[in-house]
């Protein structure tokens, strides 16, 4: 990355304060009828140093997403640790897109080394690659997690978000095709698992991840933001799929997910996981896809593959 020196924050920003700030910014912009005025992403990164997992919170996270409470941080937990830093970038006054209402399209994580829960972590995040989308403007928010002691890169994540209906001057609309098959082509396979997600799924994940985005908390708070009901966190769903892949995966891996239809709560989600092995029988990759068992609509799909 070629950004200048990072802005070092004293501590992990509070996500709830960031959401409140985002809401007031959104209200202000609505009243004043102006956006940030910028059409470029801020050319800075934010960094927080010496972040340590809280063991009680880690255990609660592991139990919620179906991981065994081991001493290794699940890749999705590292995402949750880095998320406030990413949010603080998107909450800057010079950030050109409205934070609230952004849609999580895709997430890719590269886990280079298992991270022990006692390890001090330096977390840096920045926004990049703003580009057009047929429905608005999309961008990538990248995060890097390094060992506080050795500086080694342990984990890297890229989250792709869409600001729906926002078209900035100078950014072209992209074509419709992106990624794999379109949702219309999807015909559900036989499921390998069926998740029962209660109304409190969003609140439970908010409690362990700190992501109190109102669209996940309750029907009312979600409706206030224009949703027809509360939806499950994308990273909760992806983290459960990662937990279902389980210990078969290698220590270093790439974990990808593409989100399609949101999961409105409460809901049942059907899941299919397939394992791809090498000729020698070693684990190479697991692919997963999840859909609504009633409508057959695809919710998300992704994979976990060995990183060599």
């Amino acid at each position, binding site marked *: 990355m070629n950004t200048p020196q990072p802005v070092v924050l004293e501590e992990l920003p509070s996500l709830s304060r960031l959401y409140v700030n985002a809401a007031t910014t959104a209200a202000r912009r609505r009243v004043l009828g102006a956006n940030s005025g910028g059409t470029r992403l801020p050319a800075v990164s934010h960094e927080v140093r010496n972040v340590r997992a809280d*063991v*009680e919170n880690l*255990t609660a996270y592991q139990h919620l997403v179906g991981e*065994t*409470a081991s001493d290794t941080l699940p890749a999705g937990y590292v995402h949750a640790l880095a998320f406030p830093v990413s949010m603080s970038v998107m909450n800057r006054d010079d950030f050109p897109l409205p934070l609230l209402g952004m849609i999580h399209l895709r997430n890719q994580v590269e886990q280079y080394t298992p991270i022990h829960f006692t390890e001090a972590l330096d977390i840096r995040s920045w926004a990049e690659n703003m580009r057009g989308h047929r429905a608005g403007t999309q961008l990538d928010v990248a995060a890097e997690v390094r060992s506080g002691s050795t500086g080694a890169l342990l984990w890297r994540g890229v989250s792709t978000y869409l600001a729906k209906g926002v078209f900035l001057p100078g950014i072209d609309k992209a074509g419709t095709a992106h990624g794999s098959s379109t949702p219309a082509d999807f015909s559900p396979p036989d499921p390998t698992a069926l998740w029962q997600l209660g109304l409190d799924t969003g609140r439970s994940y908010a409690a362990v991840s700190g992501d109190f985005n109102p669209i996940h908390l309750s029907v009312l708070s979600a409706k206030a933001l224009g949703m027809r009901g509360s939806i499950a966190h994308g990273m909760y769903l992806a983290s459960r799929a990662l937990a279902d892949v389980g*210990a*078969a995966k290698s220590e270093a891996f790439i974990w990808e997910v593409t989100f399609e239809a949101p999961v409105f709560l409460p809901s049942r989600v059907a899941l299919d996981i397939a394992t791809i092995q090498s000729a020698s029988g*070693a684990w190479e990759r697991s692919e997963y896809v999840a859909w609504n068992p009633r409508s057959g609509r695809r919710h998300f799909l992704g994979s976990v593959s060995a990183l060599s």
Partner: protein
Amino acid sequence: MAAADVTTGENPERTATPPATRRAFIVGGNRIPFARTGGAYVKSSNQDMLTAALEGLIARFGLQDERIGEVAAGAVLKHSRDFNLTREAVLGSALSPETPAYDLQQACATGLETVLGLSNKIKLGQIESGIAGGVDSASDAPIAVSEGLREILLDLNRAKTPVQKLKIIGRIRPKDLAPDAPNTGEPRTGLSMGEHQALTTAQWNISREAQDELAFNSHRNLAAAYERGFFDDLITPYRGLSRDSNLRPDTTLEKLSTLKPVFGKTLGSEATMTAGNSTPLTDGASTVLLATEEWADQHKLPKLATVLDGEAAAVDFVHGKDGLLMAPVFAVPRLLARHGLTFEDIDFFEIHEAFAGTVLSTLAAWEDEEFGRTRLGLDGALGKVDRAKLNVNGSSLAAGHPFAATGGRIVASLAKMLHGKGTVDGRPARGLISVCAAGGQGVVAILEAA
């Protein structure tokens, strides 16, 4: 005998020469440090801890993706939803998901019984490898609804109409809402394990000083073993803990002597059992890798010891004939007799320290001439255990006692000690394990150096 046995239809030729059984080897073990209840593992479930111990074993012996013959483990305090606790731990581990597993429960003897059960399968040729283990959490203990509420809820489930349902709900009384937590009380006597042991301790005239000394030695021996690095290849740290949190390396006999008695306070005799000479409630898990000689060699793994044999016994504590935790007193002489052995042939004695009084009552019974004659059917006393050979690397009083995990802790440690000792007077070094259990039961075993 020439004719076939008409009652069983079996060929006498075949039954006359039973198939030669194989030996079951202990390759090694792994446990997580034991934590006092409410401590480092306060939020960890049985499945979490068993998986952690299993993952450490897998890492130590390179068992990733390995299909093990069978995994057997259990927990004493177990929620009914954990019916497949061991299989779930296997599925959460790096072992091949095609590794079968079963749960076993025999109170505090659970861990040792899993070792014996899997050893027997290995000896019989049913499996080539096995992982035995146990786990318990007193912090994350299951709590059930009261018996009254349970019946009401079940009735409610069967009710068909709203009126029926309302009637059933109306039966709920405030007392039904009190939760039902597990305790260490014996169902038939209502006495806690400590109160039972207090009776036995008094019966065998075990002094407070002797109990405190045993507890002191347990802490001193365990601390010395840690200092020597004895546990370096037996323990994997978990949740920031790398040593048993109950261990008090700096405890003294003076300190132990100041503790107030907690059990036996209503007995006629002086109360002698304190929190210092009784094991605390503890969380933890342990595992032991067992295999045939060929399997260990093929995988280039060590063979520390063999499981020679085991024996279970039970006593009638309900009617006061024997103390609740005295069953090993009867199991040991039977096991020794089966192999023509005496205490002279044993180099290490691992007697689980449920309470210091348990160990001392057991030793006293074995040293008692009259008891040997009338109760054990011997010519006199069974014998005297050389104290220099007793729990030489500490035991439950210092390490703590997560019920089902204790057997695995003892077996792995003893196997390592025996391997280090090698031979004694030209024979393999031998160790005797004795574990008492609730319900008046006990399981004992003999291991031999390999």
